[in-house]
């Protein structure tokens, strides 16, 4: 293996890392922090993807000369749409299941089927895709042998920005403090004066909004159909569980190790063998460390 191939492999891993991270961040908040098993999380990503498609179609029709920047508008649109749907879902649906994890699993799975059918009815069952803005098209030639796709660079930067934003929100703001308190002890948080119902709804909505951003990004690497979310949800759960729930840093490190190992394994074996090896490693690790790789321990 020469130097150029090594750089491109590492970059490939980095790029997969940023995709996994974007997928897992929303789930890390909803499943990791709140403990809600949301099987419809994938459909929230799909919503983000469809919102991006709608934004792109809108730009194409009404402002074709601004097509270059539609993606910058689509990101907040996808976030807000999924945020709003997440907020409504929490208020009308999920909040009734907080103490019943198994029922949540079934109920949100049903919800996921309903949403898929809704997408099929609204957008049709075929694939839709959006054109990549010209400035994200093509490779960035570092030298004659190292070529790095520009859209992947954009995704990496976006993942870094979103992760930083979530970190600052959770650890440096009053809202973040409320979220961390409520997710550790809901009853006690209410007894120190925190409006837990509002915090629950906003936390769930935030996780959903992040899923929307992930969905937006997926339009840059593949097409969208009503079942797209199902492709991503399993990976997102693996990343969160492997990293250890309740820890954002764990999610980041877990996404990084899974992505890098998979990308390097793919170089030495076929894609599906690499995937299988990766899953086997995850299972072995979880057998010995059931609470995940990166957990914070305290005395009580």
């Amino acid at each position, binding site marked *: 293996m020469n130097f150029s191939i090594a750089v491109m492999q590492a970059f490939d891993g980095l790029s997969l890392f940023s995709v996994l991270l974007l997928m897992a961040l929303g789930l890390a908040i909803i499943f990791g922090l709140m403990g809600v098993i949301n099987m419809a999380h994938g459909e929230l990503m799909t919503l983000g993807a469809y919102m991006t498609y709608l934004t792109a179609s809108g730009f194409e029709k009404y402002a074709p000369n601004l097509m270059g920047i539609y993606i910058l508008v689509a990101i907040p649109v996808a976030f807000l749409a999924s945020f709003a749907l997440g907020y409504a879902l929490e208020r009308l649906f999920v909040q009734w299941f907080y103490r019943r994890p198994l029922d949540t699993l079934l109920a949100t799975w049903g919800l996921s089927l309903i949403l898929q059918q809704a997408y099929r009815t609204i957008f049709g069952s075929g694939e839709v895709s959006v054109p990549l803005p010209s400035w994200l098209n093509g490779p960035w030639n570092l030298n004659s042998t190292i070529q790095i796709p520009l859209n992947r660079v954009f995704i990496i930067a976006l993942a870094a920005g979103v992760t930083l934003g979530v970190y600052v929100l959770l650890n440096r703001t009053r809202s973040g403090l409320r979220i961390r308190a409520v997710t*550790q002890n809901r009853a006690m948080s209410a*007894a*120190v*004066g925190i409006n837990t119902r509002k915090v629950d709804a906003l936390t769930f909505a935030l996780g959903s909004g992040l899923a929307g951003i992930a969905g937006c990004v997926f339009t840059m690497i593949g097409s969208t159909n009503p079942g797209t979310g199902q492709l991503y949800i399993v990976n997102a759960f693996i990343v969160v569980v492997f990293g250890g729930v309740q820890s954002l840093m764990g999610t980041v490190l877990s996404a990084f190790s899974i992505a890098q190992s998979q990308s390097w394994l793919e170089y030495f074996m076929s894609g599906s063998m690499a995937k299988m090896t990766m899953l086997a490693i995850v299972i072995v690790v979880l057998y010995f460390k059931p609470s995940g790789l990166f957990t914070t321990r*305290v005395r009580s």
Partner: protein
Amino acid sequence: MFEVSGLDVYYGESYIIRNVSLSLPEKGTLAVMGRNGMGKTTLLKALIGMLPARSGSIRLGGVDLTRLASYARVKAGVAFVPQGRMIFPMLNVQENIMTGLEYSSSKSIPSYIYRFFPVLQEMKGRRGGNLSGGQQQMLAIARALVTDPKVLILDEPTEGIQPSIIKEIARTLNDLKRELGFSILVSEQVLSFAMEVADQFIVLDRGRIVHEEAKESLNIQRVKSFLTV
């Protein structure tokens, strides 16, 4: 000022608190005594709203709290230090205290907290879960105090804490009360601690008030007989 009348509380299907009425004047301290399983924790949880009242009423300065959620009761002026402290283990000491600042005008920790609990300032950056039992108890009290309560409710604050610290907590509570002017409602099994802080006593037995006395006229032997098995 803080008035509870005819309170009935169920824990699941079991009828625990039976027709309890009590009254706590401004700057007064009421101790709820009773053995394990007599309903002290259930009563206090119902007062802060962690358990619903089946019937009866809870009022603070004329405001009816009976149907309000916990956080609305905190806003109205009730603060709670639960049994087992229940501090947030993954938040550091400073963040734990700050969770109580939801309704206060200032968003920073008032200076008297560190004056009364200097150990909390030393441990500012340490995770709550890594503190000793006594330190966690002080942290839980500090977290409740920053909500500016009119009534501070403490559930067995001496449980699992070494005797020298128990004395210190009693002294600090009395000083804090004098300076900030709130009332205290405390459940206890340790009579010496209750004697140090309270001026009114009630004894709970199987969910009913069976004895009620002011400190001056308190028959210690009588109360002790309720506390021993």
